[in-house]
């Protein structure tokens, strides 16, 4: 066998034998892998969907416990009972300027209740009489980060309640409920905007509903999830996310009367066919030099996750990895395959502490220097 024949046999052998599944080479991915250092003692299998910063501590609702730690430490404690009575499931946590609130599921009766506390020690049941609360959602201010009011959805999916200070307001009837809880809320001045799966509600002064939008983006299949109204940033505007792979960007004028005449649809460049990313909640990340709007993901098409996405100041959506993220850390952490229902920032913007809550894979914190994530 001469050299040419030998090389031909080798080439055919290489071509026929090589067969790799997946999106990256195995050896190459191992070469790029980075050690993920656990930065805290929180379970890495917990599901964290809501967080709040209150009186110098972070609070995270994690199913069977309310986790909390001082903002300057890394060691988490947990609370499984309120006022020392009964174990509960912690569905959500939120805060106002004066109080901390939790939405819990009572183990004994399987009934949801809302509790408030001014010191995170003594809790008061403030569940609206005659209603069963099913969601507790922060109303985002126009910085895209903070919140000092909350909205509660009742199980009829029609009645909602505004929480300000330490009290819960009267029921406001949305009239058309849509069959889903409120998933996101934002305010601009005294105008409040609530979103559920198929509708956008405009409530001036959180009084009565002035406009209900059900059709503006019906071509997208609805599936509304997140809403944010940004002002004072270089990417001001109204952003609405859908679990069908799209993000709508408009202006405040668009959402006031729901005309959406200047709205544009943003989608990841790689979206192909059913490659649908189920976008969820937003968080404005204003760190100098890497300003962007982060958008988490929710469940869709089964249990597979999609990490989170990043929207640049120019409106470009990237994911897996999001722009500005250390891609080796991102893929090594497997965040690209997790569902990320929570994006949260504590401390003072823009250089506070950023958190990413996942479904069943714990809570992660952001290192802005290395642009990497570590589990808490």
């Amino acid at each position, binding site marked *: 066998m001469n050299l040419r024949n030998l090389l031909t046999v080798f080439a055919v052998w290489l071509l026929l*034998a*090589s067969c790799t599944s997946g999106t*990256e*080479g*195995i050896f190459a991915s191992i070469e790029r892998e980075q050690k993920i250092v656990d930065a805290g003692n929180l379970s890495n299998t917990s599901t964290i969907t809501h967080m709040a910063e209150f009186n110098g501590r972070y609070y995270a609702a994690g199913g069977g416990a309310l986790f909390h730690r001082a903002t300057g430490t890394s060691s988490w404690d947990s609370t499984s009972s309120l006022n020392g009575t009964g174990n509960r499931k912690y569905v959500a946590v939120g805060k106002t300027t004066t109080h901390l609130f939790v939405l819990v599921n009572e183990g004994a009766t399987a009934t949801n209740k809302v509790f408030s506390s001014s010191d995170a020690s003594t809790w008061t049941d403030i569940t609206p009489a005659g209603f069963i609360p099913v969601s507790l959602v922060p109303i985002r201010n126009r910085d895209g980060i903070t919140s000092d009011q909350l909205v509660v959805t009742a199980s009829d999916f029609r009645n909602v309640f505004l929480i300000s200070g330490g009290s819960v307001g009267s029921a406001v009837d949305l009239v058309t409920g849509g069959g889903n809880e409120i998933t996101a809320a934002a305010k601009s001045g005294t105008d409040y905007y609530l979103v559920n799966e198929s509708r956008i509600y405009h409530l001036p002064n959180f009084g009565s509903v002035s406009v209900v939008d059900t059709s503006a983006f019906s071509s997208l299949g609805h599936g509304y999830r997140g809403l944010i109204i940004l002002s004072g940033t270089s990417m001001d505007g109204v952003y609405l996310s859908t679990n069908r792979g799209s993000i709508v960007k408009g202006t405040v004028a668009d959402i006031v009367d729901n005309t959406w005449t200047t709205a544009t649809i943003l989608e990841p460049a790689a979206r192909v066919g059913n490659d649908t990313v189920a976008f969820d909640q937003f968080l404005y990340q204003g760190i100098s030099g890497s300003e962007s709007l982060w958008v988490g993901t929710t469940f869709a098409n089964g249990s597979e996750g999609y990490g989170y996405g990043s929207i640049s100041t120019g409106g470009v959506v990237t994911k897996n990895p999001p722009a500005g993220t250390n891609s080796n850390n991102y893929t*090594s952490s497997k965040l690209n395959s997790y569902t990320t229902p929570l994006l949260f920032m504590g401390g003072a913007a823009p250089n506070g502490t950023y958190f990413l809550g996942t479904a069943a894979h714990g809570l992660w914190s952001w290192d802005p220097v290395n642009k990497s994530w570590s589990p808490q």
Partner: protein
Amino acid sequence: MKKITRPLLAFSMLLIIGVLPLGAQATELKYDHRVAGDRSLTIQLGPLFPMAFQSFSGSFAPTNLSLGGTLGIDLDFYLNDTVRLGGGLRGKATSSPNSATLFMVPITFRATWELKVYPFSFPMGMGAGFSFTNFRTETSFDPMLMPTIGAYWNMSSSWSFGLDASQWIVFQPFYSKPEDGRIAYFTDLTLGAIYHF
């Protein structure tokens, strides 16, 4: 150049270790199970050293993998008293920085020539075949080469014991993303027992 020589130097040292005699034998044996038509069954066990990854453009990089272990079995057929042909099955496991396990199961066809210096034999062989490679949820089927050199003490006509050192050269092109293609180099050093029959 330095990166290239490092794995080769380590491999060479392992080869030197591999040819060190394990002991002496006073009585000459009848090698009646090492002639044409006879067979040998080899069992090997030992550590595996991840040496380097190389891109198809030529650059080397550390593997990021921990020290691993390997277990193997070979079945060979003697063509004459110094040359045998056969095949082997190996398995190896090693861990990534985040403790994910890389599994590889090579299946190779092998030609081996034995240098015999009574009461020792020094097999030198070249294997070629395929490796089933699995890491996390990804699986690949990769061509590979496996040169081997060893040193054995022939305790009896049926049993030999010794050391083998093998260089695994695994080709993993990735056609949909060519920059992800790699050639992986692993070196194993195994204790071996050969049964001749």
